């Protein structure tokens, strides 16, 4: 029995960590939604794209190698360099900023003041585009990210807890790292939104594009800023998830795990994303733990959504989301 309980605790702890990883992806969604009312479906692909870029740059891959080779009949694949991680990360961040600018210049600029669903569709179009573009640029093979993480964390945790409780808790070292990254990101973003002039302007844009324009907020500038930040957050998420499973197409599917987090926490709340992530993470692990014997496994896929759905019925704007204003 006590064994069971300890196991449940372990499960929850791991859920907590995974939840934080989810929120890392959810953050990107929240940022863009909060700041411009756009539900950015392409966030998942942006995570993938960022990670692909990072690995590609780091290992000196030639972008569009397949295309170039197909056209010119050449055989170049690699520049043959190996960038240090920091430089590669910085360069990838720059790429994400360039991407943000392109998105603004070629898409968003033309869609000012459109209905949210149209903007949403445009981001799906973008997702398609990036999906093809990313693979064309970096190829569809799987690539590994090597994070220089201290190896001992998991062991230490397990040993220490074993000494204390007679049951060794297992925690993935990656998760610990991710939790730290997430904490730093969230803290800085919350501060940014709360205390900067731009933060307030961003929220204004989300409410009413036209009115924001009329008070002199440059939508284009705001969009570049916020998409850049979301891109960089995506990069962080990409590094963490990429380290877990290798960088390849499936990485973008992680967005689907972030959506219920988003729902639960509220589309507009950064702390909500974190808390939502934790609730979902812990919830789905525990649910699987209790229900697996009853209805079989693989429930994680829908459980998060159903949990969020039930939750929303009672609180339609999510945990910390801005209240939906209903007035006539």
């Amino acid at each position, binding site marked *: 029995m006590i064994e069971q309980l300890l196991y449940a605790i372990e499960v929850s702890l791991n859920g907590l960590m995974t939840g934080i990883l989810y929120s890392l992806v959810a953050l990107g969604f929240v940022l863009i939604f909060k700041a411009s009312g756009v539900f950015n479906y392409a966030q998942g692909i942006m995570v993938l794209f960022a990670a692909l870029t990072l690995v590609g740059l780091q290992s000196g891959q030639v972008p569009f190698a397949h295309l170039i080779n197909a056209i010119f009949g050449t055989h170049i694949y690699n520049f043959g360099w190996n960038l240090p991680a920091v430089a590669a990360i910085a360069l990838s961040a720059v790429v994400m900023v360039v991407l943000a600018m392109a998105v603004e210049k070629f898409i968003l600029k033309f869609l000012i003041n459109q209905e949210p669903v149209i903007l949403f569709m445009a981001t799906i179009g973008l997702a398609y585009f990036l999906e093809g573009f990313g693979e064309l640029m970096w190829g569809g093979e*799987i690539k590994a990210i090597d994070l220089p993480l201290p190896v001992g964390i998991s062991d230490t945790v397990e040993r220490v807890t074993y000494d204390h409780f007679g049951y060794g808790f297992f925690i993935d070292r990656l998760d610990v790292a991710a939790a730290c990254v997430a904490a730093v990101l969230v803290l800085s973003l919350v501060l940014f939104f709360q205390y900067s002039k731009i933060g307030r302007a961003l929220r204004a844009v989300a409410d009413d594009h036209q009115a924001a324009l009329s008070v002199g907020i440059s939508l284009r500038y705001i969009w570049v800023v916020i998409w850049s930040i979301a891109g960089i957050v995506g990069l962080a998420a990409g590094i963490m998830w990429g380290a877990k499973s290798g960088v390849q197409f499936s990485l973008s599917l992680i967005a689907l795990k972030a959506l219920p987090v988003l729902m639960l926490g509220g589309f507009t709340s950064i702390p909500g994303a974190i808390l939502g992530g934790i609730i979902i993470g812990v919830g789905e692990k525990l649910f699987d733990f209790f229900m697996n014997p009853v209805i079989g496994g693989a429930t994680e896929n829908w459980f998060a959504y159903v949990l969020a759905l039930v939750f929303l019925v009672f609180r339609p704007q999510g945990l910390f989301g801005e209240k939906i204003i209903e007035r006539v």
Partner: protein
Amino acid sequence: PWLGYRTGPFSPGGIPTGDGFHDYMTLLNERDGGIGGVRVQVIDCETAYNTQKGVECYESTKGQGSLVYQPLSTGITYQLIPKGTAEGIPILSSGYGRTAAANGRYFPWVFNFPAHYWDGASIAIKHILDLNGGDIAGKKVTLVHLNAAYGREPIPTLEELAKIHGFEVDFVPIDFASSQEQKSQWLDIRRKKPDYILMWGWGIMNAVAVQEAANIRFPLENFIGIWWSGSENDVLPAGERAHGYKALALHRPGTDAPIFDDLQKHVFDKGLASGTGEHSGTVLYNRGAYGAMLTAEAIKTAQEIHGVADITPAMMRDGLENLVITEEKMAANGFPNFGPPFAVSCENHGGDGKAWIQQWDAHAKEWKLVSDLIQSDKELINRLVLEDAEKYAAENNIEPREC
């Protein structure tokens, strides 16, 4: 036609396999001027592992004189089985697809030699038996599988085997959509402490599973994947920690076989490689090349039987049905001792059901064969295959043909 996938979530698996297949066919064209004097044309169609695209591919290519379809996806194979059967075009799903198709009486147009999933399950259990001196009563075996047709294939066999050998078996399904995050499953496994884990996974699921297994410090030498869960893609992301992971092997890994010299000379050096060329020697590349060799042999057999060089799909089927792969043939093709020798017959479309076990050496970054060829429990398997084939026939009003 080769209905492969170089895009989408499974591209890391599809690319090397496709490269291997194409490169070998290119080799035949370049070196030998084709098969029996006829150049081989591989019609490539991108499915992205998606059934609808698969159907579109089938329809758009079947008019182009297609001899045999290699759908490279269990889902698409299922689609094509009735179509191919109705239209008389053979389907070759080597090591995947519908297991029951091994019975040629009920599935005259479908082939899945040299071994199929149920063979795989049996071989894995055999291996475990070998490790334990033949007695695994009371041991716990867990199957981690993709929650899809493919992943569920071995379940009936394992259940049967469990009854026979008295071990406990337990199933952990993983949905593809959540295969990036398998923590709860692995914590569960960690708690249940199975003695052995088998895996039927594909794509990213494998890589994550190997990592998670290493995370919970499951002894990886007791973790055995099917041949689709045993490529470099699946172990490289875990780095050093993947050391010791085992998988079934339909054929040898590595570039030792003489064929690779020919490939280098006639294909890579001429700049005709279908991919980067850097995959050659990897498990999936070799699978592609090996599959191409089997296909080419079947074509040769067909040419011999009918005495014409330009064969039709129906002749191709005869070739497949009378295919006999011997050690000599493999050696002559540059694949000495590369795969198991086997023979296909009108009744048996599934080959002999033999495979090796390979193990990952993370330090050398290579797969190594660690067993002899293991023969599956053919008696049991054939019975199961027959049952399933009969069920299929009953549902679809199919009369088995006489052999």
